[in-house]
């Protein structure tokens, strides 16, 4: 079981969180989710802080704490039980937890996708188009019949950048390529791989 580890400072903030009711927490969660995509609106924070009768920096820290919980929840891929255990352990109120949990669950996927974009970038396969040509003549050689397979590989680097490669091959190599990659695909179903996957999870 994986647990969230909160620092002492964060634990103090949790007790501050406990002084608010669910409605306000819900608002906190909304601001916090928004802050992932854009900067926190300091003016809105000051207004809200005035209404709640606390200092704006304190409120900002609370929002940041919730954001941190959301991010860690996504990063560690916690399940509800793990999240609950972690937060109840540091004394969060049950009602407040359910509010945070609800939001954490909704944005978990979105955040994981966001985090995914920061991973080590390699070219990844996106699409393949192929064409079969018969070469009939070239400048230096007439009267030939030579089948050629032309491939257009679409590869993706990161999220946006696309790389297109046009390659070709002959029949023998096409069959070899197909067989090799088919073997690669079958390998994942092998007893060995299954055993490893089962034991790692």
């Amino acid at each position, binding site marked *: 079981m994986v647990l969230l580890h909160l620092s002492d400072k964060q634990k103090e903030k949790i007790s501050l969180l406990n002084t608010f009711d669910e409605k306000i927490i819900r608002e906190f969660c909304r601001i916090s989710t928004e802050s992932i995509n854009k900067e926190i609106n300091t003016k809105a924070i000051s207004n809200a802080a005035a209404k709640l009768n606390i200092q704006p920096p304190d409120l900002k820290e609370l929002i940041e704490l919730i954001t941190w919980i959301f991010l860690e929840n996504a990063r560690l891929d916690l399940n509800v039980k793990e999240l609950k255990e972690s937060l109840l352990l540091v004394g969060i109120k049950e009602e407040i937890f359910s509010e945070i949990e609800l939001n954490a669950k909704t944005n978990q996927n979105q955040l994981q996708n966001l985090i995914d974009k920061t991973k080590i970038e390699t070219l990844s396969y996106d699409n393949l188009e192929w064409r079969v040509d018969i070469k009939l003549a070239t400048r230096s050689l*007439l009267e030939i019949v030579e089948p050629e397979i032309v491939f257009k590989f679409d590869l993706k680097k990161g999220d946006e950048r696309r790389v297109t490669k046009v*390659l070709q091959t002959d029949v023998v190599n096409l*069959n070899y390529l*197909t067989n090799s990659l088919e073997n690669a695909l079958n390998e994942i179903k092998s007893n060995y*791989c299954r055993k490893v996957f089962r034991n790692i999870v």
Partner: protein
Amino acid sequence: MELSSNYLSALKHASNDDLLSFDSFKLLIKTIFDSFIINSKLGKLNPRLDPKILEQINKSEAELKEITAAFYTLLAELARHDVDVNSASTFLEDHGFSNEKIKIFTELYQEKLQIIRLFLSSSTSSFPHIVDVSWRLDYCIKENNLERINEPIYLIELKLEVPGQSNLTSLKFSCTVEQLQDLVFKLKEASKSVEKLAQIS
């Protein structure tokens, strides 16, 4: 099939038994045909004739160069059109070669025609040609900012022969299982369509 007047006169010169004896002709023509050897650097013809052999032929260097160039051009033209042995022999006959000389030429021509055509075929432009593939299956467990990924990932490396380059280059990319399934499916489709094509013709 057309040869320039320079080459035609050089051929005429070579056909004359008084100017170029049969033995010299045999030596020269054998050296020319022997320069077409399949080695690791196909298409890189080294047309420099062995000076030791050339010493034995009683000709000035300029004359020899002209004759050699004429024969290389003749061979390229004959092979380009895939001219059969009979037509090649008729051509030489028309240009005054003796039966003896024709015989030695056609014997070597028949033996080397396909290799010469191979040389000619390699002098064309093409897309990078896939000649080999290697793959690796990884199981991604976690990244610095995302845990519990537990996802198999394939790394594919295509080895490419780029026209005009003696070294192989490679194209590396990664695939998830679904992406590899897609890739293999498309390759199989291509293989099948080539097979069908072979059955028709």
